[in-house]
């Protein structure tokens, strides 16, 4: 009943060809990312004394939430990770997550703006996002690894592939949902498209975009264990080692550290998103 079709060999041959002809080029990208982004950031994060990081976290937490109890809990939980002896690995994971998120924002928000302006682009981008979100990770991890060499860089690419879609989707949605009357009013004052975007659409879409960034960060953290399966160091390493040696305790301890990191970042970034919403409400009342 079925035709005998197989795309196995063409894909295998393509990957082999890519690796043997363009390996050098991709290795260059790896070195660029490592030497200009990751390694300096890692060095800095590991050089700053833990107490300074804790104080900074406290200040940031208070600035975001404007409440004492959550701020105290953030600092206490981060301190707990240090007590587990995982501080160094926490910093490595944080560095990886920050670089991935930065690149996601750099790619995701402009792309989200473009898709919100063009229905045709949107109809092309959406299926690609579906593939990125559902394709099993290891399918693209192995070729990415062969191109970018084992370690942190393929981990960043894998994280971007997995964590980018929600940011594009939510940026697109946020801009499309900006009130048509508001835009008309702005247009009546003769705003240029650029002014419209910067002054009207982006500020009004901010809660949605912040939610997108929040989701991107959460998904980046979910990739920590997968990243360690291709040689990225950090908290995932301990989870993996725990799994491989049936050391449930060790795995759980590192797992809890990932969860704590995720919750702290989630609460802080949500607080910033919320603030915008509340501010808009206040403006509305006035």
């Amino acid at each position, binding site marked *: 009943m079925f035709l005998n079709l197989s795309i196995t060999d063409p894909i295998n041959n393509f990957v082999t060809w890519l690796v043997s002809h363009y390996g050098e080029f991709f290795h260059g990208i790896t070195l660029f990312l*490592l030497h200009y982004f990751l390694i300096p950031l890692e060095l800095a994060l590991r050089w700053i004394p833990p107490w300074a990081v804790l104080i900074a976290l406290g200040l940031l937490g208070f600035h975001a939430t404007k409440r004492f109890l959550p701020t105290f809990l953030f600092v206490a939980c981060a301190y707990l990770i240090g007590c587990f002896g995982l501080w160094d690995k926490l910093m490595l994971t944080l560095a990886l997550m920050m670089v991935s998120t930065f690149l996601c924002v750099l790619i995701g928000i402009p792309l989200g703006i473009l898709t919100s302006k063009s229905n045709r682009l949107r109809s092309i981008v959406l299926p690609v996002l579906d593939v990125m979100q559902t394709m099993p990770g290891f399918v693209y991890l*192995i070729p990415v690894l*062969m191109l970018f060499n084992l370690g942190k860089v393929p981990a960043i690419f894998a994280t971007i592939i997995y964590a980018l879609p929600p940011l594009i989707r939510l940026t697109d949605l946020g801009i499309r949902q900006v009130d048509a009357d508001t835009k008309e009013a702005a247009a009546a004052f003769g705003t240029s498209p650029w002014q419209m975007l910067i002054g009207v659409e982006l500020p009004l879409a901010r809660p949605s975009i912040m939610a997108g960034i929040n989701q991107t960060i959460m998904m980046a953290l979910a990739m920590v264990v997968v990243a360690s399966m*291709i040689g990225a160091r950090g908290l995932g*390493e301990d989870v993996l080692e725990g799994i*491989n040696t049936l050391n449930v305790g060790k795995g759980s301890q590192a797992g809890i550290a990932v969860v704590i990191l995720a919750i702290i970042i989630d609460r802080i970034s949500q607080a910033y998103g919320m603030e915008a919403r509340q501010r808009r409400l206040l403006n509305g009342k006035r």
Partner: protein
Amino acid sequence: MKKTAVKIMLAAGLLASATLVGTQAQQNSPSKYCAAGNTVKFAGISWESGQFITEVLRNILEKGYGCKTEVIIGSTTVTETALINGDLHVWAEEWEGFNDIVIKGVKDGKAKLVGKILQGGTVEGWFVPRYLVEGDSARGIKALAPDLKSVSDLAKYKDLFKDDENPNMSRLLGCVSGWVCDKTNDGKLTAYKLNSMYQQFRPGSQAALDASVASAFQQGKPILFYYWAPTSLLGKYDVIQLKEPKYNAKCYELEKANDPKACASATPSATLRINLNADFAKSDAALTRFFGKTSFSLNQLQKAILRISEDKISASDAAMDFLKNQKATWSKWVPAGVAQKLEASMMK
């Protein structure tokens, strides 16, 4: 109406006779466990030699002993734990002394290792591509490390293996986190006085290790990596194993613990055995005797592995090939009656 009734009766009759045949074959089985109608459960192994051995054993059990068998897949940790708990019965390629779960299981009397399935044992160590030492004029690769023969030469060539993520150090592509070789490699770097220049890079998974080795070979780049045989990867790529100082039991123990005072020693050849659930082994002397006699040559295993990985045939087909062509080997493992039955089934 009548017709359907006849049909049902016919079907029932067929079913009954089928089960009768089934139970007869099982009742005649020299294995007590299978005669009682039980299924022998094998752990699914992820690497080719393990799959091949599993399929050979299963075919002999099914066709020679009249057993029912089943393969349950899972990660090593999961299946080894299941075997110790009695949910699985056979783990076909066990590296003796490598898995803490099994070591503890054997000590507690819950698992039993039988047989020596690989004549001569395994090979384990550090490897470099042959083109790195001898060059490859066909591919236009120059010999970058013509004098690299043993681990003591690594200091001289450390610039070849630079670690991108830590440019002051060189990279030994090492062992998957949590495996025994993880600590041993670190211990060896100390013992060979290389730890100020080289650091072990843990690939995180075997898939990642294999992919990086493949990538280096495809690009003709230098790479220094930990590996072992029997495996398809070493069958596929032309490598040179770096010579290491002679095996010394005391030094090796220190290396394995990554002791800072470790002294130099190569990894001893490991014994491959079959791991049986202890209760299962106790309940069935006939099958345990068969498992204990199973033994392959390195050549037989490497050949089967290459057929699976390169010719892309299934492990089950590779096992049938072996059973058809290597009667001299397997007939020594089983009683004459079982061998006859197995042979008769393959004639069909």
